[in-house]
């Protein structure tokens, strides 16, 4: 289950967060040169027609009260990292698209559970950081993103499994991934304006129009999108897991395995000079259901004993009640780089 998160008018919202006098006023984040363009417009500026990528002079013409603030990228990165840390905790993968946009994959047994996770993340972003994020929850990336856009600003929309095609059907084809102005023109010439119409095209017609690529497009239109959340976790988490040859129920065996997996994780953290504060385990039970448990430590760590202790704590919390386990994994996330690095003699 996947959520797409998008921080609402991120640059502008950061300016309003840091300077309360800007709240409620139409602002544009932009350089202040004659040829500058608007990077982000606050929601207050949008009714005036102020949009991203609009030349600044035009924006000023459109909205005489427009307050122009310069971008502060260090601050954006800082707040973006804080938001990503929230995405990281309680998810199994995070794919950042930009500073203010990410796909987050949840490990939930039921869809409504994933919606609840997304709701909580939005809440944390609001209370802990002071920004608003819109989110869309679905089984597929594209549907999640479209739902997120539909919910903007400050909204949460979800598309339960099985309802994707119906949700997409009335939307204009331009909302589909991969449908740019040219494709849209060709579709318009065939009188295809909604995603639903595209979804119903016959094999023959779709092939004639777009060749093989057309089929993929039609699959998307039907709400079929098997693209995975490509975790950029090389730097965001380090994990190690193992699938047992036989299901294992013995607590001693499970503890030993957690120890080995933790050792692997600790070693890799050290090798990459990383430390993390979130330590979690993943368990796939004999009936293939998956549970995750996690805990956080105060100081970023790569220390084996700390990781093992946390992993064992998570195992206790998983309440296996003697049920057998197929797969066990250990993960350390919310990573920070070592404050120092040992230089090497041989470069």
């Amino acid at each position, binding site marked *: 289950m996947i959520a797409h998160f998008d921080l609402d008018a991120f640059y502008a919202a950061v300016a309003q967060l840091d300077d309360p006098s800007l709240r409620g006023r139409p602002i544009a984040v932009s350089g202040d040169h004659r040829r500058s363009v608007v990077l982000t417009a606050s929601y207050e500026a949008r009714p005036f027609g102020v949009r991203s990528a609009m030349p600044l002079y035009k924006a000023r013409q459109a909205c005489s009260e427009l307050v122009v603030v310069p971008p502060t990228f260090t601050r954006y990165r800082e707040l973006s990292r804080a938001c990503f840390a929230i995405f990281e905790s309680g998810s199994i993968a995070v794919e950042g698209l930009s500073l203010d946009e990410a796909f987050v994959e949840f490990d939930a047994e039921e869809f409504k559970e994933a919606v609840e996770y997304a709701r909580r993340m939005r809440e944390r972003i609001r209370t802990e950081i002071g920004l608003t994020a819109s989110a869309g929850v679905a089984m597929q990336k594209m549907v999640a993103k479209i739902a997120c856009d539909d919910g903007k600003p400050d909204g949460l929309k979800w598309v339960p499994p099985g309802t994707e095609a119906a949700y997409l059907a009335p939307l204009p084809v331009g909302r589909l991934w991969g449908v740019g102005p040219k494709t849209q023109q060709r579709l318009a010439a065939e009188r295809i304006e909604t995603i639903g119409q595209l979804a119903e095209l016959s094999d023959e017609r779709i092939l004639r129009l777009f060749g093989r690529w057309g089929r993929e497009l039609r699959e998307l239109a039907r709400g079929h999108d098997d693209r995975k959340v490509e975790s950029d976790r090389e730097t965001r988490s380090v994990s190690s897991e193992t699938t047992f040859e036989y299901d294992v129920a013995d607590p001693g065996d499970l503890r030993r395995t957690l120890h080995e997996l933790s050792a692997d994780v600790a070693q890799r953290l050290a090798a990459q000079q990383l430390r993390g504060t979130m330590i979690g385990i993943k368990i796939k039970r004999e009936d293939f259901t998956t549970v995750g448990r996690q805990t956080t430590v105060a*100081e970023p760590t790569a220390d084996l004993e700390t990781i093992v202790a946390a992993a064992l704590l998570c195992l206790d919390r998983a309440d296996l009640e003697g049920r057998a386990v197929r797969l066990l994994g250990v993960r350390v996330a919310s990573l920070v780089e070592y*404050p*120092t690095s040992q*230089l090497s003699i041989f470069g």
Partner: protein
Amino acid sequence: MKFTCSTKDIAAAVGAASKIVNAHSTVPILSNVLLTSTDDAIRVRATDLEVTLEHVFPGEVSEPGSVTVPARLFSGYLGNLPPGLMELNGTPTRATVKCERSNYDFHALPPDEYPPLPSTQKGTTFAIDAKRFREGINATIFAASGEEARGAVLMGTLLEVAGDQFTMVATDGYRLAKWQTTLSRPLEDEGTIKYIVPSRALAEAARNLGGAETVEISALGPAGNQLAFAAQHTSIVVRLVDGQYPNYGQVIPAQFDRSVTVNTSALIAGLRRAELVAGDRASMVKISVANQQLIITANSDTTGNAYEELEVEQTGDDLTIAFNARYLVEILNHVDAPQIKMEFLGPLSPAAIRPSDESEGVRQMYVLMPLRQ
């Protein structure tokens, strides 16, 4: 086979040999030591197929032959015998020991299954003072890598002979130890000879050969891929590491532009205290040199701040540089001198550490890479 010997002699020999034995070997015979009686000497041998140790001690042999017994068990037993004489009677399947009024039977394995000694065909041979050699081993091998993942070459220690110069080098890529002495008899017409020796074999050599006067070091076998260290009663044969040792000469700066001379034990004590505070930050301590003073600082959000001030003899510009305190202390612990000299080029360049006054006949130096903050 049958012999009589002193319980002390055999306990020492088997005790040393049992340290070579790999406790986790899956080949049963490799858990055993081989005892061989010939003429009037008894030999005890153990091997893990990489390192072989053989110890000879005197005894009265009434029947030449061999027996193999489990190393740990036998060593434990011998260590608990009273001083005196014992008699050992060996067959392919059994070793019987009589000592005073105790009588023990140990299960044995057939001695002909024991791995044969590596080739005894000697190649290049040179000799070194045993005590010196042990000093060299102690001064270098600690700096070798302990991580198998980084490869056998860095886990080894380089032995280099050129004429009368004998050099040992060990490095894990972060620090480097170099120790050099002059051989009393130069090795002629051989150019520069290099051996990469597994560091643990050198640790065994230091432990077992230090009591002798000289150690003879010879290449063994037609390919010269084994090295033998032989002293009066003990010899160690080791399989050399195959590979190219990093060109250490290239990474040691030829010149430094600033230095401090400082009391070794005061520096060690200061670093140890500071390291306690630095503990959770990769043991990072900062060393600042200015106004003939060396200041050690460390800090951590969880533990607090450390500040240590030492009087030093400073030459050249001021400097602030960060080190892993553990590495630095380990190096200082191996410099046997009341004063050390640290030399620098800059905060991100290798630093050199050496005794401020060189002891006779030995040149010792260490290179340590700093931490980038």
